[in-house]
């Protein structure tokens, strides 16, 4: 029986440590992993728990991320709780197996510490890896700080393992800015945390020999489409369980999470939509602009990137005049993915806000409060003019001549 760990009411943890503590408290049966910057400490911290008697489960150090996720799939099919961690290139190497994990409806938890994708090689944070996973059939939940990385990792087990979902879940946090920045974190006790997550409920397990199961069958044109459609339906409808789990978590901790987070949106005239640590930067900028320049700025942040909260977006932006959607991944030949989702949501409503796209922060380029303020100011100019005064897509914080694409059609 694993030893319990005594935790203080307030701990000073970085995002990696927070995530690894959540894995320990969830009493994961198998962690199969391969280290990669900046998520390496999650695996290392967990290894320390194993070495010191705080873990009853198995700890499998695979020969690659592909092998790690493959072992996770085999372990999950054998009917227990499974988790791992990765970033960037490791995420890309796992990508094949991410689709296979979700296609087999295995509720694995993957803590992703977001990092840029090479080439050029870069270890710093952007959302290139996170975006690469967006069609992989996983629930994708985004944490903006260390506390959230801890809370949402606990929630992830409960969401993915719910019998109405049975899908793998990623919990994202920003490389270095969250993963390596120590902050105050309020943990649950080991008993409280496990009571919240609950026992794993095996479904179609390979270790029940009274009822043999075949995993990973082949389907061609006669069945493949139905299988994928059913999986999509499960992911689309998983919002109900996400809401339920967030409610339960609030009851337990007082910390309230929403699939779409909104800050100062009650009377907002302009808004930034963003993910990750940028959300907190944008909130701070909005508060200052409200105070200093009288700009009614607000911030909207999808906590749940998949399933995407379309209805909540429609409502949140219904009365906003100008919206900046910030993508921390280079879309390469298109608008940013988040921008496209927001436009997709708003195009089907009577509300017709002006929506522009900002690419920013690639490879860990700092995104400062002043950068956010400038974006808000441009939205204010749009709102006052009644049309988009800039190009549709702009690069924020890029050195050299301004880079922007697509002139908006002026009214």
């Amino acid at each position, binding site marked *: 029986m694993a030893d319990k760990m005594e935790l203080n009411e307030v701990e000073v943890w970085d995002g990696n440590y927070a995530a690894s503590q959540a894995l320990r408290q969830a009493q994961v*049966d*198998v962690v*199969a992993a391969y280290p990669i910057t900046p998520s390496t400490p999650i695996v290392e911290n967990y290894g320390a728990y194993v070495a010191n008697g705080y873990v*009853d*489960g*198995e700890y*499998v*150090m*695979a*020969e*690659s991320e*592909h*092998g*790690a996720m*493959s*072992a*996770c*799939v*085999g*372990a*999950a*099919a*054998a*009917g*227990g709780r*499974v988790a791992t961690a990765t970033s960037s290139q490791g995420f890309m190497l796992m990508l*094949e*197996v991410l689709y*296979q994990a979700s296609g087999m409806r295995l509720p694995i938890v993957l803590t992703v510490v977001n990092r840029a994708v090479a080439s050029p090689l870069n270890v710093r944070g952007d959302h290139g890896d996170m975006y690469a996973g967006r069609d992989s059939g996983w629930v994708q939940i985004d944490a903006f700080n260390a506390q959230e990385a801890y809370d949402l990792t606990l929630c992830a087990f409960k969401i993915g393992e719910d019998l109405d979902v049975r899908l793998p879940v990623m919990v994202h946090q920003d490389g270095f800015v969250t993963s390596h920045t120590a902050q105050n974190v309020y943990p649950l006790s080991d008993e409280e945390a496990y009571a919240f997550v609950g026992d*794993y409920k*095996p479904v179609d397990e*390979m*270790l*029940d*020999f*009274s009822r*043999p*199961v*075949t*995993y*990973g*069958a*082949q*389907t*061609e044109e006669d*069945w493949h489409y139905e*299988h994928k459609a059913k999986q999509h339906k499960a992911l689309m409808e998983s919002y109900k369980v996400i809401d339920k789990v967030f409610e339960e978590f609030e009851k337990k901790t007082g910390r309230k999470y929403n699939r779409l987070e909104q800050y100062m949106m009650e009377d907002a005239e302009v808004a930034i939509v963003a993910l990750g640590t940028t959300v907190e930067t944008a909130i701070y900028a909005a508060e200052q602009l409200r105070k200093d320049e009288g700009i009614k700025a607000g911030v909207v942040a999808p906590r749940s990137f998949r399933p995407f909260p379309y209805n909540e977006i429609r409502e949140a932006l219904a009365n906003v005049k100008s919206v900046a959607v910030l993508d921390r991944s280079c879309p390469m030949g298109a608008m940013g993915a988040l921008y496209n989702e927001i436009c997709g949501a708003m195009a089907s409503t009577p509300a017709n806000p002006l929506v522009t796209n900002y690419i920013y922060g690639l490879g860990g380029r700092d995104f400062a409060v002043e950068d956010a303020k400038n974006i808000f100011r441009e939205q204010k100019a749009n709102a006052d003019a009644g049309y988009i005064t800039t190009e549709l897509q702009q690069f924020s914080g890029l050195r050299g001549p301004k880079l922007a694409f697509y002139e908006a059609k002026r009214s």
Partner: protein
Amino acid sequence: MAITSIKNLKEFSTTNERFEGAHLLCPGCAHSMIVRELLNCTDDNLVLATNTGCLEVSTAVYPYTSWDTSWIHIGFENAASAVTGAEAMYKARKRKGTLKDPDAPVKFVAFGGDGSTFDIGFQWISGAVERGHDFTYICLDNENYANTGGQRSSATPIGAHTSTAQAGRVSYGKKQKKKDIVGIFAAHGAPYVAQLSPNKWKIMAKGFQKALETEGPCFINTVSACTTEWKFDPKDTIHVTDLATDSLMFPIYEIINGTKLNILYRPKNIIPVEEYLAAQGRYKHLFKPENRHVIEQIQKEIDEKWEYLQRREEASV
């Protein structure tokens, strides 16, 4: 471990049938013989994993399955990872007391073709063996990517014609030698490594049982004659396999703990490799005068390998 007695084939017919005859493998394919023999030589519960390949696509096409035991397929390369992940889960759940039947012994076995073993899945097996999981990996070696229509693999012998190493006006087929997969896994220090063949079914069953009984990672390369790509009549599978083992193209031997080598089958009459080659369409072009030197080279390498194996056995190191 519950070992099924294997005195004769009739006894086999009464054993636990966990691989159903209704599958889509080619008539005359040796894969099913090898797989059935593995499944029949133990009564223990089995968790099986299979890499993408002939065996996988022929046995689990939704909504049907040929497997009456736990079975998983993920992708081309990762059956070893899948089955060792399951083995880790078994250990964890046994420790925590969450297994439905905690006292029943369970064996973990992965199957792969030579494509997924020698080539695309090589790293995954190496990793699983190094980690020391208690499992057996069985390669069904038919010396080509048969599932995709017969392309070369690094198990394809020199001189064989495949669609990506073709024999033609200026080519005698594959130019490179076959990888020594048995030696490679012996070099991992695996406790039991062997090369076995379904024509010598008693030896094969004994080897399988030894692997299943041995704690730790075991690797077995099995000869799986491919009627479609080796180009011989489906009724001749065992005949061709006899020629393979009796010409010593496929010597049957085991290596214990990475060092101690035992030859498990010594042909009474060693036949020239030419007879083995002549029985298959894939070597037809080697009998042209300009390609005869390749046959000589193959024979020379077989002789050298046999000498090497015998000296290793004698030295007992």
